[in-house]
């Protein structure tokens, strides 16, 4: 346990080395939110606006989840850099168990995501609505597990790719797949409708439904806006994603990094 705290300390120190860059990114996210809210509110089909009431309210939870995703994914870039500069050899030689090392990395990636996401979530609460205490705790727990899963996914990609180019390409593909086949930017009902009309492949509709980013965004929306209605599936999807990728990442980190 002591060593997991040391890993967290090291990873958080590296994270906050870029504090002004992080402040810049959060500011950009918030600017995006406010600009997109105004512009999209006027551009969107009135039928959709009628469904979601206000694009700002709809997008703020989605933006929180994308902010969480992007920041939790940063740990992968560091792990990949360590691997390329052979810093991983030093990490592997430290007097700690492989589990402590691997779990510590996944956990710190997840917690860093939570730290980055907190001003975005606070913006949601201020402008969209306040949850009850229970809802607030559920949101935090679900977002924490989502962050762990994302951190795990990024570490798994980082240790499986040899060069930065390949890592960045893989990261881009994951971003596009998970962001755009989700209800982060547009309501799931719209994706379903497009699927029924044959304008969107049905397997991607199914993917969007299972996508943990969709479910996490919709969970916040259901608590703050009352729509879509809450369903336990939202929590289960995130937990499965987190369990799979946290375990997979820890395994991949230990096995692949030793071979690197």
């Amino acid at each position: 346990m002591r060593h997991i705290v040391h890993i967290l300390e090291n990873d958080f120190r590296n994270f906050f080395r870029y504090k002004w860059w992080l402040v810049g990114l959060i500011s950009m996210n918030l600017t995006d939110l406010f600009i997109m809210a105004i512009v999209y509110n006027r551009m969107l089909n009135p039928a959709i606006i009628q469904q979601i009431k206000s694009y700002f309210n709809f997008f703020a939870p989605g933006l929180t989840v994308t902010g969480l995703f992007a920041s939790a994914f940063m740990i992968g870039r560091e792990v990949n850099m360590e691997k390329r500069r052979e810093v991983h050899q030093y990490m592997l030689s430290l007097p700690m168990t492989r589990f402590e090392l691997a779990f510590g990395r996944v956990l710190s990636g997840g917690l860093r995501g939570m730290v980055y996401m907190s001003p975005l979530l606070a913006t949601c609460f201020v402008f969209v609505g306040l949850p009850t205490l229970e809802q607030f705790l559920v949101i935090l727990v679900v977002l924490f597990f989502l962050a762990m899963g994302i951190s795990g996914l990024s570490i798994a990609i980082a240790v499986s790719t040899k060069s930065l180019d390949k890592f960045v390409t893989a990261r881009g593909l994951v971003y596009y797949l998970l962001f755009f086949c989700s209800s982060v930017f547009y309501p799931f009902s719209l994706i379903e409708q497009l699927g029924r009309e044959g304008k969107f492949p049905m397997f991607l509709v199914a993917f969007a439904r299972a996508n943990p980013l969709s479910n996490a965004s919709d969970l916040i929306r259901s608590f703050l806006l009352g729509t879509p209605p809450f369903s336990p599936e939202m929590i289960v999807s995130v937990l499965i994603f987190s369990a799979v990728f946290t375990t997979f990442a820890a395994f991949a980190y230990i096995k692949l990094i030793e071979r690197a």
Partner: protein
Amino acid sequence: MPPIIRTENLTKRFGNFTAVDHLNLEVNEGEILGLLGPNGAGKTTTILMLATVIRPTEGTAYVGGYDVRKNPDKVRELLGVAFQEPKLLWVSTPWDVVNWHAKVCGLSTQERKRRVREVLEALDMWDYRHRSVHALSGGMRKRVEIAKVLIQRPKIAIVDEPTAQIDIVGKHKIWRMLRELREEGTTIILATNELYEADVLSDRVGIMHRGKLLVCDTPQKLKDSIVGGDIVEIQFESDPSPKIVEELEHFREVVKIIKTKASTLRLYLNRVEEVVPKIMSTLMKEGVAVSSIRMSEPSLDDVFAHYTGLTLEEAQKEGG
């Protein structure tokens, strides 16, 4: 006392390339064992296996009685490693690197602060402790890498080319600090391709070439193992008589005598430090006047060449 490190047919293959080939090595507690060899000899791969960073393909090693395959966690608790290439992220600072390393190794807050300051000052890195690693020179980064082990004071320290890129003053400082570390009870494995470093620091030297350990003994015994490796050049005031040459040939340590000039003899022999006093007393007894005497012993380079048929430079080129 059983050896603190023992390898049994330790082997590492990367595809078709065998980096370490059935290595059998023993390291005694409290000694400095120099692993000497050119780049590509298998020193670093051996170190990585001992440090449990990579797994052996075949064979195993016991470190402090623990098998590196079965108890890697226990092995790591005994070890401190200073790598050949400094393992530092460029955004870090020397202070962060060594302070965090000391924390991970379980040093108490007070002890940690004291040792970090002490070692960074001794290595002339105190003034640079808050600079980013990318702003440091290669030698400075290397000092940060070695500082980790000097602060940790592990039971077993593995240092891979500890003074590469470091100036001569720095080299002497690090050598002194490594000796002090050994005096405090740490066993040290020193991997190097610098002959002088291996010679002055090591209690024993193992010569590695193409993944194999060719020989392992004290530097003196290794030098003595070259028959006729020591050279004594005696300049007489007048031509030495055949009787004198004959008497010198009778010493069993003397392998060969060559007359290089009219009044100069070059003797190829073993154990120069023992035989020269005997030669001098013979010459004095015979009343032969000597104007000068010059002695030289083989270097580890000669030892390396003796066992590999290559100079270290040639082997370096061969190993890439």
